[in-house]
């Protein structure tokens, strides 16, 4: 799904190699939040490697046109730590934004699907309000619902367990696992700085980002 072959980004990655395969679950631990945020941008194709190769769904990212890159991003769901919601859209508009943007025709039963997802992940706040006053965790949940509605092939979780009690972490992990199993070949990628995360997630591969390189942990 995402492969780095000796990819370098000036001042950040130095001939780094990594592979997230279909159906797999992978965690990448960084040393700082800055590195984690930058890595998220690289995974999303917002920052491109200066040298080396980065493959997104088997295609070299530098060979993709803007529309092709957007097509690839459509297949990636990103749950950002702060939710990544748009402040001037109501919560429900935020959740439906990517799916209604990418579907040429209005989809039947989209509202119902959204409500079901929100129930499933435990979002119990008002969805007709602007996201500003919501606590960070609720924003993250709305971001999760937004990513789930897109039925992505790869889903990236950016520090989604921050500030949660062990109980809620367990529940969130249960939902993540269930969501991954819903579609064959769907992969999960966890980005975090906290090694304690490894107690909660079930990752097939764990990478540490140190001095610009990914080191696989056994």
């Amino acid at each position, binding site marked *: 799904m995402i492969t780095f072959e000796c990819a370098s980004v000036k001042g950040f990655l130095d001939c780094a190699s990594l592979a997230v395969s279909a159906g797999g679950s992978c965690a990448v631990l960084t040393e700082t939040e800055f590195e984690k945020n930058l890595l998220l941008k690289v995974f999303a194709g*917002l920052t491109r490697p200066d040298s080396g190769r980065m493959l997104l769904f088997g295609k070299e990212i530098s060979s993709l046109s803007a529309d092709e890159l957007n097509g*690839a*991003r459509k297949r*990636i769901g990103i749950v950002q730590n*702060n939710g*990544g919601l748009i402040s001037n859209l109501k919560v429900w508009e935020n959740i439906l934004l990517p799916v*209604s*943007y990418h579907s*040429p025709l209005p989809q039947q039963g989209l509202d119902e699907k959204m409500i079901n997802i929100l129930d499933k992940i435990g979002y119990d706040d008002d969805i007709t309000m602007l996201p500003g006053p919501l606590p960070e965790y609720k924003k993250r949940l709305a971001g999760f619902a937004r990513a789930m509605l897109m039925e992505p092939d790869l889903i990236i979780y950016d520090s989604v367990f921050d500030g949660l009690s062990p109980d809620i972490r367990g529940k969130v992990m249960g939902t993540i696992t269930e969501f991954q199993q819903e579609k064959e070949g769907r992969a999960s990628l966890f980005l975090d700085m906290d090694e304690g995360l490894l107690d909660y997630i079930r990752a097939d591969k764990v990478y540490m980002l140190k001095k610009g390189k990914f080191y696989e942990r056994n």
Partner: protein
Amino acid sequence: MRTKKITDGALNTIVYLSGLFNLILGALKNLPALKISPVRTVFFRQIYFAGIETLGKMVIIGLLIGIVIISQITSLVGVGRGELIGKILVWVVVRELGPLFAAIVVIARSVTAISAELGSMNVQGEIASIEMMGIDPERYLIMPRIIALTLSMVMLTFYFELSAILGGIAVTSVFWGVPFEQHTTGILTSLTIMELSASLVKSLLFGVVIAAVSCSQGFKVSGSITRIPQATTKATIQSLFFVFIFDGIITLIFFL
């Protein structure tokens, strides 16, 4: 040293102007995206904010300006010259003041709003978030704003001109007893296609340029939230500057 400064300044200006031009071309190229429901929502919201919500104030300003102009003209040329008064009213309002006042009101209201909104979205990482969802910001954020602001500008100019002319006629008819027909003859004979085209071209061009400048300045904000007021100020001043320059050029082209 001085030559280098001038050359750099000229180069920066050219780069900036070509950026604005590309933004406008991109908006035209992305017009079919109005079929996409979230893009259409942004478009209608902008029409509502920049056009419909401003309409009432625009009509009041138009009425007042019409009254002021007609009072001055009447004092200058005398009460019995209804046809001449109507002619001057058309020349002043339709050729010049209509598009110019509409632009000034839109700059005061929408330029600051658009540049601040896009600037804060950029600082808070919302534009990056939009890109991560595979949504093209030019298609989703810029195009509907440019098109909506341009259409709003045309609409506001039309209502401003209409209310200014009607306001003027009403005042002279009520206070100076000038027959209504005297004015209408003057207005109808001097309201040619040329006058209407100049007004339309001005309002279209002002709308496009004002919207492109505000989007461009909003998108340039990065790093700190304190850059937002700087961006809004820049957008306001540049929009005013462009409006006056284009106003002069179009007037010269049409009426010289």
